[in-house]
């Protein structure tokens, strides 16, 4: 259910709020691409590409600062209340969640060099690729939910996180089973352990997306699901 309040009498007020929203959407798109590209590195490692993905971190952090600065100016100029205040404050938190997602993408890119020689079985990579695709879709969905102030869509995003959590647990079981066989080389053992860390990174990305979905609720309904749900 989309929720669109009427326009402000002062048109600039709407423009100021829309600008904050568009920075969040751009930032979300950027970290989504970061995850996609970092995942691709595990299948075909490229040092230059890994460096580029890591370097995006600066851009993401800059966008985080921009959201804060725009919210600050909007508060000074417009003294927002009620829905407007939530639409001003929530993006500060949402940007912070996106920034953390960017950090996870950076870590995933950093770790990709491990998988250049001897590689764990395809099933591990399939699971990671599935998790990565799922969180990318969740991210798109949560950004749409935020953009449309759609709490039903936000609720569906929160539900999807269970699949990510289950996939992470599955990865843990698969790695434990592989390590238990005791026939792995040192390199392969390291790679398997890092598979769990990768999966953990993606599982955390899912949690940050869930937090964003909660903020969509907070904006629309005015209460914090994290404190009540």
């Amino acid at each position, binding site marked *: 259910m989309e929720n669109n*309040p*009427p326009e402000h009498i*002062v048109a600039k007020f709407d423009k100021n709020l829309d600008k904050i929203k568009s920075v969040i959407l751009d930032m979300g798109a950027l970290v989504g691409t970061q995850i996609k590209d970092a995942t691709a590195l595990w299948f075909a490692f490229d040092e230059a590409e890994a460096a580029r993905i890591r370097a995006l971190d600066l851009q993401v952090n800059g966008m985080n600062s921009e959201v804060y600065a725009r919210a600050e100016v909007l508060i000074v100029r417009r*003294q*927002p*209340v009620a829905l407007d*205040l939530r639409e001003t404050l929530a993006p500060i938190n949402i940007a912070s969640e996106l920034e953390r997602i960017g950090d996870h993408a950076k870590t995933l890119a950093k770790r990709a060099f491990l998988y250049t020689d001897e590689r764990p079985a395809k099933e591990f990579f399939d699971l990671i690729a599935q998790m990565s695709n799922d969180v990318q879709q969740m991210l798109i969905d949560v950004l749409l939910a935020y953009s449309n102030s759609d709490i039903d869509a936000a609720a569906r995003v929160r539900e999807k996180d269970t699949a990510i959590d289950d996939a992470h647990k599955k990865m843990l079981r698969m790695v434990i089973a592989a390590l238990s066989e005791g026939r792995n080389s040192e390199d392969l053992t390291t790679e398997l352990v890092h598979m769990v860390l990768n999966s953990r990174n993606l599982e955390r990305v899912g949690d940050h997306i869930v937090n964003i979905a909660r903020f969509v609720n907070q904006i629309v309904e*005015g209460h914090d699901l994290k404190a009540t749900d």
Partner: protein
Amino acid sequence: MVDSIISSRDVNIFYADKQAIFGVDMDILPNKVTAFIGPSGCGKSTFLRAINRMNDLIPICYMEGCMTIGGQDIYAPEVDVVALRAQVGMVFQKPNPFPKSIFENVAYGLRIHKMAAAKSEMDDRVEWSLKSAGLWDEVHDRLDQPGNSLSGGQQQRLCIARAIAIEPKVILMDEPCSALDPIATAVVEDLIDQLRREFTIIIVTHSMQQAARISQRTAFFHLGNLVEFNDTKTIFTNPVDERTQNYITGRIG
């Protein structure tokens, strides 16, 4: 649950054949600041003035319904309007000191209500009122000077001192800071917060921020209806009615 000090039940107010207030039920709690907000012409000042029967002064204005203060129907035939207004003081938008000395401005009400017999008692009450209004330190050495020689903010505090001198239960304020600069406004707002310990205050204001800053309860009026009456925090963070939200956020509703 604290009992309300002022209650209105199905109050309708008319100016000749034009209805200005539609069936307002409201319970105002003692020792709180209650803010009335709403666009111009929404009826908030009309409703405020019904609380001390100031609307009686407008020949075409009449009221239906029930308004009680401390359980007493203030529109009952036996009610002495002068005595009622001693219980329900009022401070207006523009400071309006009498063309008298600072001392006499405060002493005036005490004299007509015969609330101070001896001179020493009068002096004490004037001093208490000026101190309560946060004005004593600024005027104690020039009490004989005209009230209108003071600055705008001081004049408004003098009017507040005049209102509280006779120790009303309720003080009505109709945009008391709209003619004041931000510093004088801050002083009056701080004063309002102090005064609520002893009095019940109802303030009409066009400043959302002021209502949010100084009141504990806020009533939103629109087209003569009481749309929403709630804790100020709720009104300004998560109002229930869409009309309230559109008004306080400056949206075209």
